[in-house]
């Protein structure tokens, strides 16, 4: 090999890892592409061998079936209701508790924070059965509020908000303190406006968390018209499993709200995750 060939080989070698990572990133997106692409294909096209890697035909038939013959819109409404309500409560109540934990002198603050930390790692399998029995005694099974209330009791919210509020300079509150403002007023007028990025991150996390809590939805909900979207889509797929056009359309529709959130709020995932981990 002459010198030029060696230089070329070296350059190729330096680029190889990056090329590999980009290929892996595309592979990571491939299942989602596969799902979306085939949901617009007629059932016959989803069953060709070898499979076509790009759309050969285009049809809305799968979605017409989905909206016409199944209650997916109702399920979407249920899921949106559950996730929006629980995310709002998570954000507000977690921030409300995290403020005194981080900034005010509060007896037992360490213990309270420690409780939140412990329950972040306790696997839910330990309390799954008793919580179900409790909800049955409260007559909240097969009820959307039975999904919302446990989703609000999510210690990660307190943890994330406390970590974030700790980084807010305490001087901000001094003037208000001298004016004799109450903690609750300081919280609403001074703190909430400055912690907007954390509020956004937590809202997104809480929304996705309750949306994807499949095991709890599965246990709690029995009436078809009270199903959440993931639950409905899963049961639908058991009935439609022979028609992959329908199944993938249902999967795509089930993914849509989260895809939208992902596309618009990606930065929140990054910031929220990082605050949660690095400072923990």
């Amino acid at each position, binding site marked *: 090999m002459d010198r030029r060939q060696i230089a070329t080989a070296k350059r190729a070698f330096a680029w190889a*890892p*990056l090329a590999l*990572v980009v290929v892996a*990133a*595309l592979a*990571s997106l491939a*299942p*989602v592409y*596969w*799902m979306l692409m085939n949901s617009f294909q007629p059932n016959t096209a*989803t069953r060709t*061998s070898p*499979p076509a890697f790009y759309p050969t035909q285009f049809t809305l038939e799968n979605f017409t079936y989905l909206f016409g013959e199944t209650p997916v819109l109702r399920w979407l409404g249920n899921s949106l209701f559950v996730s929006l309500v629980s995310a709002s409560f998570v954000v507000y*109540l977690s921030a*409300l*508790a995290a403020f*005194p*934990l981080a900034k005010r002198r509060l007896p037992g603050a360490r213990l*309270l924070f420690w*409780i939140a930390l412990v*329950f972040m*790692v*306790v*696997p*839910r399998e*330990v*309390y*799954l*059965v*008793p*919580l*179900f*029995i*409790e909800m049955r005694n409260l007559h909240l099974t097969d009820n959307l509020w039975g999904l919302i*209330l446990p989703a609000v*009791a999510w210690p990660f919210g307190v943890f994330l908000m406390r970590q974030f509020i700790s980084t807010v300079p305490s001087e901000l509150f001094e003037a208000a303190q001298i004016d004799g403002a109450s903690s609750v007023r300081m*919280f609403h007028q001074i703190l909430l406006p400055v912690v907007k990025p954390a509020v956004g991150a937590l809202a997104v996390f809480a929304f*996705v968390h309750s949306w*994807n809590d*499949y*095991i709890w939805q599965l*246990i709690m909900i029995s009436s078809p018209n009270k199903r959440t979207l*993931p639950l409905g*889509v*899963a049961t639908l*797929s058991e009935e439609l499993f022979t028609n*992959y056009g329908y*199944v993938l359309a249902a*999967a*795509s529709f*089930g*993914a849509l709200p*989260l895809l939208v959130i*992902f596309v618009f709020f*990606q930065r929140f*995932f990054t910031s929220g*995750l*990082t605050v949660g*981990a*690095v400072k923990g």
Partner: protein
Amino acid sequence: MVAPIYVLFAVFLIVPTIAGFYYALTDFSARRERTFVWFDNFGTIFQDRTFWIAMRNTVYIVVAVVPSSLVVSLAIAAVVTRRSATLRSFVRGSFYLPVTLSAVTLSLTWSYIFHPTVGVANYLLSLLGIEPVTWLGDARFALLSIIIILFTTHLGVPVVLYSAALGGVPETYYEAARLDGASSLQQFVHVSVPMIRPTTLYLLVTSTIGTFQVFVYVRLLTGGGPGNATQTLAYYLYERAFVYGDFGLASAVGVVLFAVVLLIAAAQLRLTRSDIEY
């Protein structure tokens, strides 16, 4: 101000957890009244072959998914760390997307990918000259299929966190290493890896706990089968409680799962902490 959320914690987390330990000591089913039986439930599950299969499969999954996903994520983060912001955000987003999408959606997609006759997985194998495989329906491959899916959904969080951690290592440390004549690989091993150890520790513990609870893919793709090939602890618990209605026994499984997770997390903390003094 702390009261509202902590009342909810008490009602929906703390009380049920305590009750879980109590229920584990009772004979309690959908049909019978609750009676205290001490450790009978633990005796029953420890003698159940299916329980041990579930335990073994869960451990296999954790061992196969957690270390490999962390190493691969670290490599990915290291490769893109000094590239353009656009590239970094594309790579982070690509790996994070499967984390956000519901496991239900991904299950349906993977059931199509793994379909024995029309699935793309077998098509790709055929290009390599390998005979088609009944991925989810063959006891030899079903657990592997679940592991593959979990691996692809476990890269997102570590890629994001490792990118952030590597970006936070002060440039002066690398300069000092270069002055000492360290190659880029040596810089990575002796500067980056020790500096991001807290992130590794966090990921190791959270990822182990999360993987121990694998449920959705098992429930939607294999139902624990074929045979008990993909039976896991969380699925076993679900079946005991909500298919067979044996709440006491299921609570005992929950307590065992908790104890195992706790032991592993404590061991990981201890192992990784022992040489962290810098």
